[in-house]
């Protein structure tokens, strides 16, 4: 026989809510609390754990990422060897500043080439871009430079008419000049352009020739492109570095703000 219970009224429900929220312990409170705590914990962990992009990547992506990381690791290992050698030399020749001076000069040369304050030469490619249709814009040039860097270009300069050459460094910006070409690092250049890049000639040339790349798109749009590998490319335009007003060297130990 079932006894029908009248449906609870709102007031009853609210009373029960208040009673339930009162601080009270009982037989069942412990295990209920434990269960709720574990639920909260697990839910928070699940929500807080970030998606790993590698989990979602496709097989082809993963292979490319592996290649890239492998190349980077071997570069880094070479650098570690060089640094360890330098350290050994410096420690061994402590007090003898000759080795230190030589090492410092070498480092200065490398940094100078990167910062654009030292002219550089070496094997590489020369990319000439003629623009009869006026299709070469800053975005296209930026894309080509990125492709060159990705292929390992160590020093790059862009020249155009009038007879000016601009060294491309990290902070070089490419901005369209309306009806008149591209401003590279603030210097207005008009076509035809020549991009000189120092690096492994065949790697650079291959990177520029990739279908779907920036250069290929330019060619398709009507620009006149020629890529020439050369055993000796000279990048002697210099970048005038201004003393940074806001950037200061940071203590190498504090490196964790971005992530």
């Amino acid at each position, binding site marked *: 026989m079932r006894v029908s219970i009248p449906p609870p009224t709102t007031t009853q429900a609210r009373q029960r809510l208040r009673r339930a929220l009162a601080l009270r312990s009982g037989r069942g409170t412990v295990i209920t609390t434990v269960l709720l705590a574990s639920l909260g914990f697990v839910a928070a962990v699940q929500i807080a754990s970030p998606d790993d992009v590698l989990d979602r990547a496709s097989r082809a992506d993963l292979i490319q990422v592996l290649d890239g*990381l492998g190349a980077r690791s071997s570069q880094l290992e070479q650098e570690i060897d060089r640094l360890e050698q330098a350290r050994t030399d*410096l420690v061994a020749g402590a007090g003898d500043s000759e080795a230190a*001076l030589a090492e410092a000069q070498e480092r200065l040369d490398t940094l100078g080439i990167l910062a654009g304050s030292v002219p550089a030469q070496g094997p590489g490619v020369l990319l000439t871009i003629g623009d009869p249709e006026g299709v070469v814009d800053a975005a296209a040039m930026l894309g080509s430079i*990125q492709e060159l860097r990705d292929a390992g270009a*160590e020093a790059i300069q862009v020249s155009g008419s009038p007879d000016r050459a601009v060294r491309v460094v990290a902070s070089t910006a490419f901005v369209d000049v309306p009806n008149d070409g591209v401003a590279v690092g603030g210097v207005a250049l008009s076509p035809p352009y020549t991009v000189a890049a120092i690096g492994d000639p065949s790697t650079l040339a291959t990177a520029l020739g990739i279908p779907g790349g920036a250069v290929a798109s330019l060619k398709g749009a009507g620009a006149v492109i020629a890529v020439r590998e050369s055993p000796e490319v000279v990048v002697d335009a210099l970048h005038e570095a201004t003393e940074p007003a806001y*950037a*200061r060297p940071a203590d*190498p130990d504090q490196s964790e*703000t971005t992530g």
Partner: protein
Amino acid sequence: MLLTLVALALAGLLIAVLVVSGRERAASVSSERSSLVALAQQAREEASALEERVVELDAEVSRLRDAALGAETVGSELATQIGTLGVTAGTEPVQGPGAKVVVSDGETEVSGAEESLSRVLDIDLQQVVNGLWASGAESVAINGQRIGALTAIRSVQEVILVNYTPVVSPYEVLAIGDPRTLPTDFLRSSGGRWLQAVNLSSGIRFTIDSVSSRSVLPAQPVGALRYARPVPADEREDAQ
């Protein structure tokens, strides 16, 4: 009773077959993929451990070198020059106020073909970085990867690589510069306009704020150059 037995046996057989074949299929596909994923994760950790070692060694060598050069005027000048150049070349960590641009993938409601449109691509990040330089930024980093002279920003289908290292959305682009003018200058620059256009067409979201406290941008260590060498001083022309 017999009928029930037969029915149950058949059901059991069907389940067993499904389980075995399902496991085989899933195992072959997923094991290859999960070992690829594991390899990639391991490679990433190795690369980042190597990077840390390089930064450590580099600091140590610099200290040793500075100590060895300290006494001589020529030597200490060289040391100072190396420090200053390092800031602009990206090989020294820097700190300072500036701006932060955060770019994130758009909401993906439909999976498959639609998804790719609202994903941030390498050209988007290239334009952002380019716009920041054009607006006077002095140093830039994306998700902890410093933009140096050798840094390439490249998409490999769904993954974006900066300095050959994968980075994920949301992409936090930190720039050091004048915190009062950098955000507005950036919005007016080609980079800012690009972001606004891409936001309208593909739903990619972005925010920009000035950062008045000092953010620290890590160094991007560079080894010896393999192809470029300096033009000897006597061969250089004095004027460009």
